[in-house]
């Protein structure tokens, strides 16, 4: 993982190991890549700088920028001010983007490395025919806690409502994930369309607010690693990074069930540079590159070559690849009214 020594094993890029062909044909083109924060091996602390490698190989100019929630991605994309060539939305957001006609169908023949995608990650509900998205990472939301501060491994999301840990609890700073947790806790279908049920969740979240230290997204790393907070729900991959940095931390999947997600590459309709985008995606799926990214990001990697690779240090990680079946569901896209309701309720919660 990033920051850990394991990352340094891939020092440079041996181009002979690449499978696709990378020429300077498109040199000078600009490629706007819009990805999650710290979601690519970026050269820090001795890891491989994937974007730099790609630029060097193809002469394409990569503008790499970040978002921190699917909703922020959606806003930027639909705002119209900027155009992106590659985005990495999660499942339910892909569904929404497809529904709203904002992404295009990539020509898979230009992505020979698509063959590494395992079958179980094909034909998922949001892209039934594998027309729009190419999986990049996947994972589940877990509950990370600090063993020195929490005596017994929590089994339920309800520990996030436990007054014992008042002031030491963190919560997702995005509506879908926060409400998701409340929904699991209340035993409601996570894709419900019932206003009453959403409102019940909002009440639950408001109730939680008194115990919260703060709402976080990626700030969670520092807070958990330094022992500033005791409990937080977060994406398993990131939890593994944290645990590596602070062995007092541990991860559990609560009994009520949790969210499973896939983050996939998509190409927006508005792109100006399909060829370069396809090339980039193919590059990202190169076994060597995928391995570097998997090591760096620590998320589970839907890539057969990586999973088979002995160098992959996380291959046997219980949290990433649990042997025991974890009760997990995908989020689905919600209809417009529900989305508006959700946005309003979320503001309500935050304003509360």
């Amino acid at each position, binding site marked *: 993982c990033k*920051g850990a020594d394991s990352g340094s094993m891939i020092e440079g890029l041996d181009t002979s190991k690449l499978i696709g062909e990378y020429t300077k044909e498109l040199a000078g083109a*600009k490629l*706007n890549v*819009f990805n999650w*924060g*710290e979601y690519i091996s*970026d*050269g*820090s*602390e001795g890891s491989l*700088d994937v974007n*730099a490698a790609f630029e060097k190989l193809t002469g394409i100019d990569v*503008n*790499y*920028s*970040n978002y*921190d929630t699917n909703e922020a991605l959606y806003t930027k994309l639909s*705002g*119209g*001010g*900027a*155009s*992106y060539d590659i985005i990495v939305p999660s499942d339910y957001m892909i569904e929404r983007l497809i529904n709203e006609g904002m992404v295009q169908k990539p020509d898979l023949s230009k992505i020979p490395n698509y063959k590494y995608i395992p079958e179980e990650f094909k034909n998922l509900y949001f892209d039934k025919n594998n027309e729009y998205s190419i999986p990049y990472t996947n994972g589940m939301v877990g509950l990370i806690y600090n063993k020195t501060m929490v005596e017994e491994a929590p089994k339920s999301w309800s520990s996030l409502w436990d007054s014992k840990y008042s002031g030491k609890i963190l919560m997702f700073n995005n509506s879908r994930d926060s409400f998701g947790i409340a929904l699991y806790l209340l035993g409601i279908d996570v894709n419900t369309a019932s206003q009453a049920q959403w409102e019940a969740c909002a009440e639950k979240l408001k109730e939680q607010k008194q115990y919260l230290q703060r709402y976080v*997204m*990626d*700030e969670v*790393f*520092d807070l958990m*690693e*330094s022992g*500033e907070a005791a409990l937080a729900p977060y994406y398993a991959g990131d939890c593994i990074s944290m645990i590596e940095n602070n062995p007092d931390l541990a991860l559990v999947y609560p009994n009520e069930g949790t969210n499973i997600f896939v983050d996939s590459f998509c190409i927006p309709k*508005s792109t*100006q540079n399909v060829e370069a985008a396809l090339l980039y995606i193919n590059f990202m799926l190169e076994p060597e590159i995928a391995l570097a990214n998997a090591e760096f990001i620590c998320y589970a990697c839907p890539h057969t070559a990586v999973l088979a690779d002995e160098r992959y240090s996380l291959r046997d990680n219980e949290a990433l690849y649990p042997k025991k079946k974890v009760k997990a569901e995908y989020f689905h896209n919600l209809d417009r009214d529900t989305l508006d309701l959700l946005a309003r309720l979320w503001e309500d919660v935050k304003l509360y």
Partner: protein
Amino acid sequence: MKIHSKIYMALIMLFLYAPIIVMVVFSFNSSNSTGVMVGFSIKWYGELFNSSSILNALKNTIVLALCSSVISVIIGTLAAVGIFMLKRKWLKSSILTVTNIPMMNPDIVTGVSMMLLFVFVGQMLGMREVLGFGTLLIAHITFNLPYVILSVLPKLRQTDPHLSEAAQDLGCTPFKAFFKVVLPTITTGIVTGFIMAFTLSLDDFIISYFTSGPEYQTLPILIFSMTKRRVTPDIYALSSLIFVVILVLLLIMNITQSRAENKSKKLRTKEGY
């Protein structure tokens, strides 16, 4: 000065500098945490020079600040002269009121309003990507302009209205008179305006945040997206370097200034003023 005034000042200075001290200290942290000091190391300074995104953002920021301040100084000086020449009071005061808007308006409203305009125009023109260097530049020029205008205008007011006439009297055309006589007398105002514009532009986050696109990120925007994740000490290292540079520059300025003052004082006493 009394002792309690001194203590009071010292406390305020401590307050103002506490975060900067933290920043400098943690830039030498050997771990990547900005919360716990693990050990001393200068590796982050090395990281800094390897980080293409930081260096690129730094370059972008400086280029943007330079361009926007130069352009706003040109437009602003011209505008100040124009406003100064205006005879009709209502026109003058309404232009000045409009000029004040970007200063009085919260940055977020300015940023949002410009973004709305850019996006709207972009959509009308069928452009897929409006937000970028161009929009940033326009936004920066716009919020710089009032500062330039308001530092040039008072200088114009202070200059003798007859200077330009005197030059014409001696054979200049009105145009030449402006460049030969008026412009040199308002240079201090122009320089002040430039410095203000440059620093404001360097440091602007909010307006840039709304008007920038993916291809042109400035340092503040990069820092913002970093603080959303995890701030690594390399950015502290950069800030510490900037701090040191500013400190040194100001010290040099201060010393030369007080030297010049002493010199002129000596000169004066010598000449028997």
